């Protein structure tokens, strides 16, 4: 019993230290940043957000970022959100769907900016993108599926059947795939799907597609992205193009994409936070679907699969050698 009491005392003491330490910082802005897991895309978004805030003049004396990462363990998200509420952060930036849902559900009166939630209405974070009603607004990064296929029709007009590789557990990629299938059904294109549950299964998924498809499309999927070089290499050997959903994928060997950079999404969300800090009410800052896209082409891959690209297209694109 004595031992237990001692442990309890120690716990309470440590906790109160932590709380008092945070109280001192309350004079300036504290921004909570909630990240679900460590992956390249999320980290780029976070860094883009922070860098943009600093650019906008919120120096380290004026604004501190309390960045927390659940490290892939969803049961930690609730505790992280509670820690932010305890700290009374001025507002929260939540990266990707579960973080945003977890924080919103706490029912605190702290405003939230979500970064890269592909379907905010479906996720229950907002009822109408134009009129934020739950003290939360932010950016949605729906992948421009139609633009993607138009690009493909221009660069590789002979492609009739697409292979789709994605992980079923990622709401972002499933949303993109649903849109892609709808587009292909409407435009008389065929597709073959290969789903994975972790990055170790990607290799076999690609091999199952080779020979049955004319091109491969990879959505904004962090699992497949991890193993994208595997996809790119297999496709190169089979001389078929891989269309990705981010510049990072093209840099890892995919053929081309039309996309927005993750850093840019973070920056756009930071601009929205700036509006709020300058006095705008959250309800007056509409949530946006990011639509400022760039075409990215990998020249090395293009040469390897024997695709020639017109000079005017190359001039308009960001080319990766």
């Amino acid at each position, binding site marked *: 019993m004595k*031992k237990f009491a001692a442990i309890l005392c120690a*716990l309470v003491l440590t906790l109160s230290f932590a709380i008092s330490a945070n109280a001192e910082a309350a004079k300036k802005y504290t921004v909570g940043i909630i990240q679900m897991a460590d992956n390249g895309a999320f980290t780029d978004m976070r860094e883009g957000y922070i860098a943009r805030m600093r650019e906008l003049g919120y120096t380290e004396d004026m604004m501190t970022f309390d960045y927390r990462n659940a490290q892939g363990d969803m049961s930690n998200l609730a505790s992280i959100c509670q820690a932010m509420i*305890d700290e009374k952060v001025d507002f929260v930036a939540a990266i990707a769907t579960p973080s945003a849902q977890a924080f919103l559900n706490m029912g605190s009166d702290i405003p939230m900016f979500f970064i890269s939630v592909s379907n905010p209405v479906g996720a229950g974070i907002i009822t109408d993108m134009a009129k934020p009603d739950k003290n939360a607004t932010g950016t949605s990064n729906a992948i421009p599926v139609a633009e993607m296929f138009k690009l493909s029709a221009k660069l590789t007009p002979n492609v009739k059947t697409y292979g789709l590789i994605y992980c*079923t*557990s990622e709401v972002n990629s499933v949303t993109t795939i649903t849109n892609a299938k709808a587009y292909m059904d409407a435009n008389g294109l065929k597709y073959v799907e290969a789903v994975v549950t972790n990055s170790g299964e990607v290799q076999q998924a690609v091999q199952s597609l080779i020979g049955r498809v004319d091109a491969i499309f990879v959505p904004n999927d962090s699992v497949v992205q991890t193993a994208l070089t595997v996809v790119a290499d297999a496709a190169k050997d089979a001389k078929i193009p891989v269309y990705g959903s981010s510049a990072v994928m093209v840099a890892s060997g995919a053929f081309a994409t039309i996309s927005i950079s993750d850093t840019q999404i973070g920056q756009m969300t930071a601009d929205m936070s700036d509006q709020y800090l300058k006095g705008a009410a959250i309800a007056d800052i509409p949530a946006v679907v990011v639509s400022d896209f760039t075409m990215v082409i990998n020249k090395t891959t293009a040469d390897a699969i024997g695709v020639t690209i017109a000079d005017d297209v190359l001039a308009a694109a960001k080319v990766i050698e």
Partner: protein
Amino acid sequence: MTLLLGSLQLGLMYGLLAMGVYISFRILNTPDLTAEGSFTLGVAVSAMVTVAGAPYLGLLAAFLCGMAAGAVTGLLQTKVGVHPILAGILTMSGLYTVNLAVMGASSNVSLIGKDTLFQRLFTQLAPMPKDTVKLLVGLALAVLTLMALIWFFKTHVGLCIRATGNNEAMVRSSSINASAMKVIGLAVSNGCIALSGAIVAQYQGYADISSGIGILVVGLASVIIGEALFGRRGVTFGLISAIAGSVAYRIIISLALSTNIFPTYFLKLISAVIVAIALSLPTVKEQMVKRRIRREGKSRA
């Protein structure tokens, strides 16, 4: 305060998970890896039934589905003779697809703004602070399940399950159907785990297919922390200490989150170190007792 209160709420809700793991790990004495699948199954079933408008039924449905999952693992172990670890892995990976199917092939189902049991109770118990309501729900569910389990493990079947975990050969020679006992035990265990997922889904406001990742470690850590704090005694005491261990585990996580000394990516390491310290307490105590005895022995010699 929110963090401490939140840790209590979460600890009680994940306490159901800890009891479930305790049943398979300590009472049945068998390693069961079904947890990651059955927890998510509970999350998914509870969310879908809640969306359909019946949050309380969601808990019951989740419990029953969890039991079914546990029974599958049990049947694989006993009837098909699959190694216990492999049986759990098989059920767990099969459940991944089942869970997606339950959620309508979507990996995330939102419960925000939906009629969850918390939302209902917030209005029914109106002036009471929301955090108190959440705490009471966690407490009520944990205590009710605890009492039901204590009762269950004192019934004839419950005693047979305990005996199977202690000495299977003896149980078989007493012409008790040990296989059936294992299946029932695993069913009850995974029922509790799914129930934990069910309440957590309504608490956190969404169901996600990745909810169960790492959950077995959470459950095991809770059970072992409970034992480190209170020692290993009977089943009743073990179940209670599993809940206490779960609360302690959440407080540890909140401590790891409150320490701003380390960079953010240290979270897992810090919580692992704190858990390790908690686990070493009994050994340290034992060493101190031994040292004292040795010292006293010398002084008397």
